[in-house]
Structure formats: C-alpha cells, structure tokens
C-alpha cells in the first residue's frame, strides 16, 4: 500500500474498452515482486474474508517463491480480463461478468469440470474441494480488497487500469 497517497477504495463504474463493445473494471490489483517479502498475509486475509479461516490454502490469490531466483516471490491474482479465457471456455456458461465487470463463477451453474483453470493463462480458478465447484477472486464484491489492505510492503497495488498497465510495462522492462 502506498500509504501516503489517497487511494480509490471501491470499484466505480466499469470503463469501456476502446475499439470494442466490452467493458472492464476500473480498478485492478497489480503485484510488484521487487517489493514482495513472501509474508503470505494477502492469502490469509483473503481466506478469512471468504472462508473465515486463516488457512492460506483457501485464499483466491497465490504467492510463491520463484523457482528461478532465491528470495524472490511471484504472485498470481485475477485481472478481471477484457476477454476472460475462463468465461469463454466454460461449457456450462457458469462464468459471467457482473454489472461492475467483476468476472464471477456462479456456484449454482458450475459443475467443477476445471476447464476454466486450464484456460486461464495464470490458472486462477481453483477447486473448492468441499463444494466440488471452482472458485475465483470476486474483487471482494467491489469493496476495498482485503489482499491489498493486508499488504504491508506495498507489493500489491490497487490501481486504475491505465496506471496498472504502465506499472506492469515498467516491471517488464518497458515491453
């Protein structure tokens, strides 16, 4: 969290994507691995918010040590894409974009086939073993996301799409 700066805490109206008929959430969470300490508090906060447990395995985002670099932690969290691959791949049409453009899985329609997990480039949807359905980040229903609130080193940033894109570009060395 960039503590000194005032931040927008809740999702606003979805923004149109130029050149398409699609809309996308105005805010997105981006991870800066250079700042991440691997504390796991984001996963724990998420797990408590959604499952009332501190077991990080219940979290809906994932932080792991990079296999290529010691002490460097990488993350996977849902970007609520413009064209979500999970949504496109679902054979039961259980995945949809809501009015805030949060990409959601309907627990009533999901049959737990796992196609969404296979289709997502970063394998975000995971199996809820008790309910035998797939679950994913719901952006805390558009409210101040718990993972972001939990992050002391400021590795997770809650940014408007454009700023997030610039940050990711910078993190990738301008590409």
């Amino acid at each position, binding site marked *: 969290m960039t503590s000194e700066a005032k931040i927008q805490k809740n999702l606003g109206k979805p923004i149109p994507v130029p050149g398409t008929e699609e809309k996308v959430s105005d805010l997105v969470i981006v991870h800066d691995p250079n700042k991440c*300490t691997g504390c*796991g508090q984001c996963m724990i906060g998420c797990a408590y*918010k959604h499952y009332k447990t501190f*077991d990080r395995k219940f979290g809906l985002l994932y932080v792991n040590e990079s296999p290529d670099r010691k*002490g460097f932690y990488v993350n996977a969290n849902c970007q609520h894409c413009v064209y979500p691959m999970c949504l496109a791949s679902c054979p039961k049409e259980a995945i949809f974009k809501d009015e805030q453009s949060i990409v959601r899985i309907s627990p009533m329609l999901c049959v737990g086939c796992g196609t969404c997990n296979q289709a997502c480039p970063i394998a975000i949807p995971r199996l809820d073993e008790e309910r035998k359905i797939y679950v994913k980040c719901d952006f805390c229903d558009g409210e101040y996301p718990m993972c972001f609130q*939990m992050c002391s*080193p*400021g590795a997770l940033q809650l940014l408007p799409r454009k700023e997030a894109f610039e940050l990711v570009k910078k993190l990738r060395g301008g590409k």
Partner: protein
Amino acid sequence: MTTAQTKNKTDDQTKYGYFLGCVMPAKMPWAEKATMLVSKHLGLDFGYMKETLCCVRPGVWKAVNPDWWLSITAQNLANAEKQGIVMVDTCNGCYVSHYEAIQELHEEPEKMKMVNEHLVKAGMDPLKGTVRVRHYLELLYEDVGMKKIKANVVNPLTGIKIMRHVGCHARKRGDILPNYFDEILKATGVEIIDTPYDKTCCGLLLYFSDSNQSILDRIGKKMLTAKELNVDAYAIICSGCYDQFDRAVKVYKDEKGIAFDTPIVHFSELLALAFGYKPEDFGMMYCRPIPTTKLIDKLKTLKEGKQ
C-alpha cells in the same frame, strides 16, 4: 485498573513514550534495556508509555473486522494522546497497527466518530487525532541524527560481520525505514553481508496458516544462510520477528537436529556496544536461545587487538 482510569500527563512522563508490545518484555529484556540505555545516552526524553493494551495486530484483526481492529487500537492512541506523549514503537507490528489506525482515522471522519463512540462507552476520552506515532528508527535517524549517533561511537564494531532482517511492516513506507536501519548499523562499524533472503518475511504472519512453511520455508532459509556464511550475528529491529527466530531455533533443533549458532541481536544492542557499554550492562548474555558468548569473545579479542 481499567483504561478509563488513565492518568493525565504527570511530571515523570517523558516526551517520548515507549510502547513495549508483548514480546519485548517477555523474551527480549536485553533489547529493552539496551534501547533505554541508548536513548538516555543520546539525550532523548524517553521513558515507558503508561497503561498500554495489546497493539492489536492488523494482519489478524483487520481481516476479522476492520472496525473492531480500529476501535481496540484506538485505545492505545487515546491513552497516548491523553498522556501528551509521542508514541514510540520498536516492534514493526505495533508500529504498523498504530500508524495505519491513526492514518485511517484521519482519512475517514466517519470512522473517527464510530471509534470515539466506542471509546466513550469504555469510559475513555474521545480521540482528537493529534497523537503522533513514531518508529524507534525514525526517532534515532530524524530526531537524533546520524551526526550525533556517529559522534557517540567510541567502540566501533569493526570486524563483526552481520546479516540483517528488516521485517515486512517496516516496509510500510517504502525504503525509508530499511535505509535508516542500514545507516544506523553502518554507523556502529559492523560489516553488513547481503544475501538473497534479506527481504524475505520471517514467517510469523504465515505461522497461523501453515507452521511448516512458516518455519522451514521462510525463517529457516534465512537462518541456514547465516549458518552457511558463518556471520557473527543476525541483526533485527522487530520483537515480533524475534519471536519467530526464537521459535525456529527450537523447531530446527527438535525436528531436524540442526543447531543454529548465529545469535539474534537487536540493533539497540549493537548501538549500546558501539557507544562503549559492556555486554553485562544490558544482560546481553542472558535469556537467549542462541548464546552470544562467541560474539562477545570476538568483540573482546578485536578490542584487545586494537589496543
């Protein structure tokens, strides 16, 4: 005694009120003593904050209920405000809890109203929001200044190699506190060894969730690196992190048969030594899972060599 019975500022109340937290008095009496010695030595009007409650760790309580966290943390802030002190934390967890709470209360007047309703119900004075929360590193670097700290170093710890652990919450304001930590350590004359695991979390935050990963995959990697590099000490800031180091020593010894021999020292201890205090002045050799004997012997040998 209830929080309602908080006294007003008295003559013996200092400008800076030291919020000890839970681990410092229980497991780190040497660090507490060294912090007091260093503060007095540098001429700070520094004493214990009176009538403190748990800092209410935000990592746990914020997830459970942000309003509960804010209301309970605000009791410490209200006490500090009433006593007219600047609240000083050495534990990163306490610091981040108080710092975030006061920031959130400033940003959101509705939360301030809610918290004050709770405080009044508990028989306390409402919070105005004028209280200042500072980390001990800020106090040393900003209020005392590096010039004065360096001028007080009479026994530079040249020849002592250390690894250092900053801790996650000290990164709350970016690189400010980690840089202060490095500058202060360098002023004592120690040699800082950089490793890939310097930034890694101690694992305390993960301990609730996955004790194995917390010990073996986080703190364990740091301690094994220290053992491998044969450094003289592991310097820390935070008492919360120390709790995890303390736990890792026992777990590794009992479950893996690995005995760590790198003592975990608080940076105040290094400062006290550099200012000319003896280890026995702050009980450096007592109550430690890893003895400091080797470090103390090396310091003696180096001192004799210089003479």
